[in-house]
């Protein structure tokens, strides 16, 4: 459609201007800030920030807290991602069965945690995980197991966070898996049945390969999402005990908005961005279609 410049400006202008001001320029500014010593003194007077080259990055590489935060975040990703995939896919397959009743109800119930406010439900979880009065340890007690101090013990603090993260993520991924399963043509299964394939064989040779696009999308989103872990540790443990749940974004928040080391925090943001890109690209590479 031929359109006068005036109309193009009217329609694209607001969104484009907002995007340039609040996305494009800040992204560039992040890189610029990451090579300065911008700190609490520069807040009032920007000219007090100086170019320091890659000092922030070399400091980052020798900062034990950064490595700890990175280890914790990757730990969460490495455990939570397979758990989410297995549970969400399992539930999706059970719900998607022809003979399952109440499909609609199950779908809604499993999805509830996903639309729930993380901060508010984390408050609830922190009491579920409470060592003395918590539901979880009460439940374990019924079987004679005395539950650990979930949030207070560095061994169990990250698993506690992962529990909440996975609990929240199942529903969303389940919906995507159901959509993916419904796209698999039934004749494939019928043909396999004629050839006498077992359920396991059908799963490995039909379901999994046919789910590849869904799997790629789901795991990519999870990599991006889980590496940005923040609200759960902020609410449940404040990064403790002994920094066992300090995540990269939580550390970024602390450096940037508690200590106002904004230059250093920007270097953290850039590092996180690069880590996300690298891991996502590795993931994409791994899934080069084999068929």
């Amino acid at each position: 459609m031929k359109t006068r410049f005036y109309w193009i400006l009217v329609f694209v202008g607001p969104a484009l201007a907002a995007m340039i001001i609040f996305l494009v320029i800040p992204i560039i500014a992040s890189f610029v800030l990451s090579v300065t010593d911008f700190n609490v003194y520069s807040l009032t007077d920007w000219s007090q920030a100086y170019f320091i080259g890659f000092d922030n990055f070399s400091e980052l590489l020798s900062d034990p807290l950064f490595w700890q935060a990175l280890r914790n975040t990757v730990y969460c990703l490495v455990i939570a991602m397979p758990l989410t995939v297995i549970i969400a896919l399992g539930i999706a397959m059970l719900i998607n069965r022809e003979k399952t009743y109440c499909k609609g109800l199950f779908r809604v119930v499993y999805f509830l945690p996903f639309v729930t406010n993380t901060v508010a439900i984390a408050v609830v979880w922190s009491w579920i995980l409470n060592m003395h009065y918590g539901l979880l340890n009460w439940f374990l007690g019924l079987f004679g197991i005395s539950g650990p101090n979930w949030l207070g013990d560095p061994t169990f603090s990250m698993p506690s966070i992962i529990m909440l993260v996975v609990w929240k993520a199942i529903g969303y991924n389940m919906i995507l898996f159901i959509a993916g399963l419904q796209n698999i043509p039934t004749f494939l299964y019928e043909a396999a049945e004629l050839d006498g394939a077992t359920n396991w064989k059908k799963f490995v040779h039909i379901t999994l390969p046919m789910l590849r696009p869904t799997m790629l999308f789901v795991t990519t989103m999870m990599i991006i999402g889980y590496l940005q872990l923040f609200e759960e540790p902020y609410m449940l443990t404040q990064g403790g005990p002994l920094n066992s749940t300090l995540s990269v974004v939580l550390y970024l928040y602390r450096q940037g908005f508690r200590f106002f080391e904004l230059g250093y925090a920007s270097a953290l943001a850039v590092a996180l961005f690069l880590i996300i890109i690298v891991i996502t690209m590795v993931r994409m590479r791994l899934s080069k279609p084999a068929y």
Partner: protein
Amino acid sequence: MTKQRSIIQQIVVHGVLAIGALVMVVPFVWMVSTSFKPAQEIFVVPPTWIPSQPTLKNYVDLFQNLDFARPFLNTVIVSGSITVLSVLFSSMAGFAFAKFRFRGRNALFMLILATIMVPGQMTIIPVFLMLRHLGLINTYAGLIIPAMVSAFNVFFMRQYILTIPDDLLEAAKIDGAKEGFLFFKIILPLSVPALSTIAIFTFTGSWNSFLWPLIIAQDERMYTLPVAISVLAGQYGENLAIQMAGSCIVIAPILIFFIIAQRKFLKGIALTGMKY
């Protein structure tokens, strides 16, 4: 023999699904139940599922002593404005990218797409500095304006509007219709399914958003609900019942909204595979 097996299978499958569903629901049930408990009943072991002496005291405290109406109102204003502005600007831009022909269109669109992949933390610090410089910390504008930009919404609206036939627009143009008329009288009415999808996701996303309000709303009067809850959990660490009442108030509106509009939600997720 096989019939018996299939009955057992049915029982196992539904049993597993039911147990899983219970795990999903129990935290909510416990939250609601505890929010109606008087203080002395909170630490009772084994936990009571139905309060023996239900009370509204926690909710009354929340609104009267802790002035929770204020963050509630803030959240409604902020999420509402973000949703309206984002839907309007995204559909306008989506329309232009789908139907207008102009130089640099594809390059601009690719630029917008590229920003989808950048994590939010990348922009927080510079935007914070910018808003601080402009004196927009602790203002509604500071909470709303940076959050109303969504590259995804523009992308989604463009994809939807592409499916609206050009002939419709050309015909109206021959009758002398201007672009503004085309947008409001043809494009918007035909895009209602897409508009409601992004409206639902944008509203839910901004209702639940935490990091940005945490940074921008430093003054108590500007707190949004998630920020107020996080502060409450710090200050009233021991008063579980009041925290649960607070959590209920944050969670309930979206949950009710979801249950009413569940078809739309679930279809939107499956359709777009989006995350907010």
